[in-house]
């Protein structure tokens, strides 16, 4: 009995000590401003050494002014598993203080997992909140509050391999270029050279949201503006998918499922990709960059975005928000613009963007980036993005067969995703 009591006492004491230590180590969980030895961690998906070096330089300059910040770490997570890793870290109580986000932003905002930034950014001297492009902040805002700074706002554009088109004796006029002309020239290039016609980069018959770069030109959308109703069954969407299906199976303007073709390796005549992918261009072939072709619904533009925000799970919310304001101030935004198309109007001129670009001219950037932003729409985004993406893909798999019943497949997409939209 005595032995049991002693054992129980020892366990209780150890537990109490462990709990005391844990509580002591939790630091300023409230996000107070008087903490010292604050260590900040930002989750990013880039592993580009030049980009990480720039972040470190900005962080070092900030720490020089804020001795209470003992370190700022940029944690590179693999892009493919980024959302899964980030949510696992949050669920496991190991959330970073700041994080990049793409299609996870809606879930994070809806769950109040992000700190509102508007007040802090407006109150920061010289930050110039009104300099932000309205179309760039829309995706990361709720009820007038900005929850993530849209550090990368990159429009989709049409890259053209002019060498390949010349070989196939195809001429295009960028001023009046339509999707039908792209498909015709792509089919001819494929028939003549054996290379692919046009490729929607990253689609690969899986990431169907990237097809918004095509269907928007047909006047279609994945769901209604309030995100509640699936609109895949609309006549415009049927027209868009008929165009894509014909391109994949009839005219062969687009490589079919299971066929890989990398435009930047010279394997395709056209590709739709973000302007930020221009760094992949080499001198292997001559190229041109144009805004997206006109669709039946007229001219349009689509942007892909990434934001950076402060997580409410952070133990140092105040310091993290202050660092974010510093990192995205006009001076640092100008530095970041060499890698990421900025959301600031003052930086959005072809000449300024071209100063940091090794492969694109001021005129190309003015036309493909600056002129596109004011009226651009974003790729489809919604809460539960992974579930919508998977269920939509499962339904759309039936589309990628030569004898697909297009209206029936589109109807099955709505059946699959509507319950998630309605949540």
């Amino acid at each position, binding site marked *: 009995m005595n032995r049991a009591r002693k054992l129980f006492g020892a366990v209780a004491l150890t537990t109490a000590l462990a709990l005391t230590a844990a509580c002591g180590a939790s630091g300023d969980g409230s996000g107070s401003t008087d903490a010292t030895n604050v260590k900040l961690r930002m989750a990013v998906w880039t592993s580009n050494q030049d980009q990480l070096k720039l972040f470190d330089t900005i962080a070092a300059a900030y720490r020089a002014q804020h001795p209470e910040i003992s370190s700022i770490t940029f944690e590179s997570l693999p892009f493919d598993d980024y*959302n899964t890793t980030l949510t696992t870290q949050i669920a496991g109580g190991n959330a970073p203080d700041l994080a990049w986000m793409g299609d996870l932003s809606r879930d*994070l905002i809806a769950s109040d997992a992000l700190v509102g930034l508007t007040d802090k950014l407006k109150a920061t001297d010289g930050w110039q909140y009104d300099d932000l492009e309205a179309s760039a902040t829309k995706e990361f805002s709720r009820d007038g509050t900005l929850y993530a700074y849209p550090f990368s706002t990159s429009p989709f554009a049409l890259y053209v391999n002019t060498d390949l088109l010349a070989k196939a004796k195809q001429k295009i006029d960028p001023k009046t270029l339509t999707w039908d002309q792209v498909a015709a020239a792509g089919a001819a290039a494929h028939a003549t050279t054996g290379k692919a016609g046009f490729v929607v980069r990253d689609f690969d*018959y*899986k990431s169907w949201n990237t097809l918004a770069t095509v269907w928007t030109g047909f006047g279609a959308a994945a769901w209604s503006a309030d995100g509640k109703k699936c609109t895949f069954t609309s006549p415009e969407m049927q027209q868009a998918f008929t165009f894509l299906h014909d391109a994949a199976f009839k005219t062969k303007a687009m490589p079919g499922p299971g*066929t890989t073709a990398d435009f930047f390796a010279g394997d395709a005549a056209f590709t739709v990709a973000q302007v930020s992918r221009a760094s992949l261009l080499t001198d292997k072939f001559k190229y041109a960059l144009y805004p997206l072709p006109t669709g039946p619904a007229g001219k349009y533009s689509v942007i892909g975005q990434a934001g950076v925000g402060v997580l409410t799970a952070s133990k140092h919310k105040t310091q993290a928000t202050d660092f974010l304001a510093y990192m995205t101030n006009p001076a640092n935004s100008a530095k970041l613009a060499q890698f990421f198309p900025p959301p600031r109007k003052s930086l959005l001129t072809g000449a300024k963007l071209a100063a940091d670009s090794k492969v694109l001219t001021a005129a190309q950037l003015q036309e493909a980036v600056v002129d596109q932003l004011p009226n651009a729409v974003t790729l489809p985004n919604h809460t539960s993005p992974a579930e919508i993406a998977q269920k939509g893909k499962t339904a759309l798999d039936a589309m990628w067969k030569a004898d697909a019943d297009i209206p029936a497949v589109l109807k099955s997409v709505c059946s699959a995703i509507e319950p998630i939209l309605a949540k």
Partner: protein
Amino acid sequence: MAALMKTPATTPDASRVPTGARSASAPPFWTSRRRDVLAGYLFIAPQLAGVVLFVLIPVGLAIWYSLSDWNVFTGEQTFVGADNYAALADDPQLPSVLWATAVFCVGVVILNIGLGLLLAVLLNRRFRGATFFRTLFFSPVVVSVVAWTLVWGFLLQDNGGVNGLLGTVGITGPNWLQHGDTAMVSVIITQVIRSVGVNMVLFLAALQGVPSNLYEAARIDGAGSRVMFTRITLPLISPTVLLTSIITIVGALQSFAQIAVLTSGGPELSTTVLVYYVFQQAFEFNHIGYGSTLALMLLSFVMLLTLLQWQLRRKWVFHEQ
């Protein structure tokens, strides 16, 4: 011996021993039996700690999570009772997932054990190059699953190496990973080629343990090679067949990386096996509660199948009769 040990306590002088010293003559706490017990526990302690930490606690947590709804972004956990178990019946994707799991497991088990046994029988002979072929067939086992699957992913593209090879002999190969049936066949074959080496080695070891005099006696009695295989070889290696079938079934039910890298569960749900579905629900869709429920279902399948095989061993395993 026991009597000898008790002798000092029964001596007449024992009554003169002071009261305080009586306890010194009591049997020591660390008897040899207790020492043995302690040593036994210390020997199993590392394994036991591993089982507790990495099996029992996670299973216990999975049971708890399966009874709750967990918002991973806010950390809010709500007790929902058996709701997640009831959701199993309402999940429209689950029948397809279970069917894909069954097809995958049956395909892998039959091919893996059949091919492993065939290779072992063929290589259980002395001929020039036998060691080379044994090494060749075993080598995929030591290759990283992801690397192996990535390479096969390229080979199985519509314009990939497999169809290129078929094209040289005038055959137009299918678009392997884009059609439900061929995608499942591709996943099974990729898995079998990679793992058949383990079963081959186990069968080889078992075959080499079969006494050669039994074959001599059978030959004298006029038995042919087919009869010798079915009446001598197979019964004598049946314990290994049991072992490999358990290992292969459990391995097939846990196959994840091959599916994730090669097909991501598609096209449609044709290759979405249960373990991949668990990952999707828990880590991609953030339905931790429902994902845990599915994981417990998978655990119960593995346990039931293993138990069933263990019970059936008496009927067909030679040494268990």
